[in-house]
């Protein structure tokens, strides 16, 4: 995959049009994991808009994001910063190769009380 393909892929997965961002910073204002992030939520959007793929891939913040969706929920422009983070995370994981949890390993470790969304995001995060 070329650099351009990777970028386009991130845009596609994120489902977000970065050009819609009006740089208000509301995503940052709401983010509970903000202080741990080296790249801030609004920067993810900005990097996509500016095509700074390397900065995206190198970010550590993709592992800090809680996928709480607060930034998505509150964005006045219908932009999804978390969507971008998720997309970058996916891309990084895919680049690492096939080392995820196997389907049959899942049932014993699932706590039925855990919200589905958290589960999915945890898998994505910790299955490397």
């Amino acid at each position, binding site marked *: 995959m070329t650099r351009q393909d990777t970028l386009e892929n991130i845009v596609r997965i994120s489902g977000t049009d970065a050009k*819609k961002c*009006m*740089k*208000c*910073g*509301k*995503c*940052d*204002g*709401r*983010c509970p994991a*903000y*202080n741990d992030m080296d790249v*801030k939520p*609004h920067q993810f959007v900005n990097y996509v808009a500016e095509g700074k793929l390397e900065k995206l891939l190198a970010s550590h913040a993709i592992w800090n994001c809680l996928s709480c969706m*607060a930034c998505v929920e*509150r*964005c*006045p*422009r*219908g932009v999804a910063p978390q969507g971008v983070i998720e997309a970058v995370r996916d891309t990084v994981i895919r680049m690492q190769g096939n080392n995820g949890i196997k389907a049959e390993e899942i049932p014993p470790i699932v706590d039925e009380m855990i919200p589905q969304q958290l589960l999915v995001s945890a898998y994505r995060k910790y299955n490397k």
Partner: protein
Amino acid sequence: MQKIGVFICWCGSNIAATVDVVRVAEEIKREPGVVYSADYQYMCSENGQQLIKNAIKEYGLTGIVIGSCSPRMHEATFRKAAESVGLNPYMVEVANLREQVSWIHKDKEEATEKALILVRTAIAKVRLNAPLKEGESPVVKRALVIGGGIAGIQAALDIAEAGYPVDIVEKNATIGGRMAQLDKTFPTLDCSACILTPKMVDCAQNEKIDILSYSEIEEVKGYVGNFSVKIRKKARYVDETKCTGCKICMTKCPSKKGLDEFNMNLKTRTAIHIPFAQAIPNVAVIDPEQCLKLKTGKCGICQKFCGAGAIDYTMKDSFIERQYGAIVVATGFKPIDLTAFNEYGYADNKDVVTSLELERLMNAAGPTNGVLLRPSDMTHPKVITFIQCVGSRDVSGCGKPYCSKICCMYTAKHAMLIREKYPDTEVHVFYIDVRTPGKNYDEFYRRAVEQYNVDYIKGMVGKVYNENGKLMVQGSDLLNNEQIVIPSDLVVLATAIEPEPSVRKIATLLTASIDTNNFLNESHPKLRPVESPTAGVYLAGVCQGPKDIPETVSQASACAAKVIGLLAKDKLKTNPCVASSNEMMCNGCSQCANVCAYGAITYVDKEFRLGGGKTEIRRVASVNPAVCQGCGACTVTCPSGAMDLSGFSSKQIMSEVEAICKK
């Protein structure tokens, strides 16, 4: 059979250099119906026009075609010339031989051929032209202003000044509108009431102005110059002609728990009340939802104490019907509902207030008598945080996609006033962008920053939560790339504004078009910004788009100028190129009315003769030529072809098509 004259203009060398004008004039002579054809250097000149006039007279021409520059240029000139010698001006067609031929083609043969086709096309059309006469309709010399805020007041005053009677219909008990609620105004910081109330008084005293307060528009019929409007005067339960405004009733009324709308519900009021001290008319009104007498039948104290005998509990809504020549819509705005923005804790914390509420909190006539105290515990707030763009520029569906335009300036004003009056107060402002175009506006904002040390933070607030009595404002600081939490005593939300909701109904009554945000549409965004597409309806203030007081006042005066211009005419000339329905073919299906942007089409039940002495009543469309603007949308919607447009009839256009296709 038409006798057609053709006049080919050289336009100096503009046309003649590329088009063989002599050949065109010569060949066109052979066209059926053409009895005269000539070419001349400048048809639009005095001599050229004389040539046309002479030919019309000499040959008894019934229609003329001018091959010249664009009709947008000289059509009117040639029409006038024709009219001056008795030929109907609508029997003139122009073939555009300059802009569409000589200026864009180089090859003379090709250009001449095209010129011939264009002239033949114009002949084909003019053969089917019919003389048209501009209609006339009388003008009722009275104006209606809907809404008694600063826009309505200004428009009414200006119209009255020119000598025309004006009615202001205001749905509240007093005129004054939003501006009456404000404390100070930017960028001069003069007191709002000080500049508004004299104008309100002027209105009351001007004998040309009739203020119909506590009234609403019920029905509108008619069209430009001739509106007939039914107005509902809501039951006030106080006789306006008798009440002296002494306010004794207010001191005696036992029902004191009503929310005071004028003070943004930050205070209570009695059931019988005068909205505020300088209200116009200075007459009490009873809130029927609150009044014990009206609700339970027991009480009647105010009536007992009213020396003027003005109280009448049996009062009913009444209706008046008046005729107007023009209508100004000035219905104003309201702040949006904030329930969708619970992240700012507006519903849960008394100390999170909107900017309009802050105006009241700072106003000398407000609930705190002008001392800035926070609503929860009536203490003086030490840290105040402003949040900008609450609900503005929001496409997520919670707010409004547009910029509310006034918030940047009033927030700077608030910040400055607070720092001025209470220098020990810390003021923070979260902003996305600061927009201050306007005379002395940016200077004003810079003063807040430079002189008053207001802390402007580029970033947005994510949430506001209450922690031990402090409002914790968590937001981003984009310039420092950090997340900050400001423990505040008072949070002020620069709430987006939206058109007053009642404008929807008014727009429907007036058949004035409205956009997706409920702002009324103007006729042209640049060139006709104060006119509604519906003729005779004008727009002032925020009902047309967000704007501040100076802009509102200018627009109101502009409206007044337009209204005066209209009322000054005794008769209105109407464009004769309007739609009309052939009743013998009309199905009455209503499709045409659905696409008419002007509400020019109505339906009438008409009796038609059938064969054998029988008659039949059918529903048919009827176009009001005074209202129709002649776009033709209806003509295409009509499947039977009953609807046609004078001057651009289907047959005319099709004959043009045929002429072009002949090559």
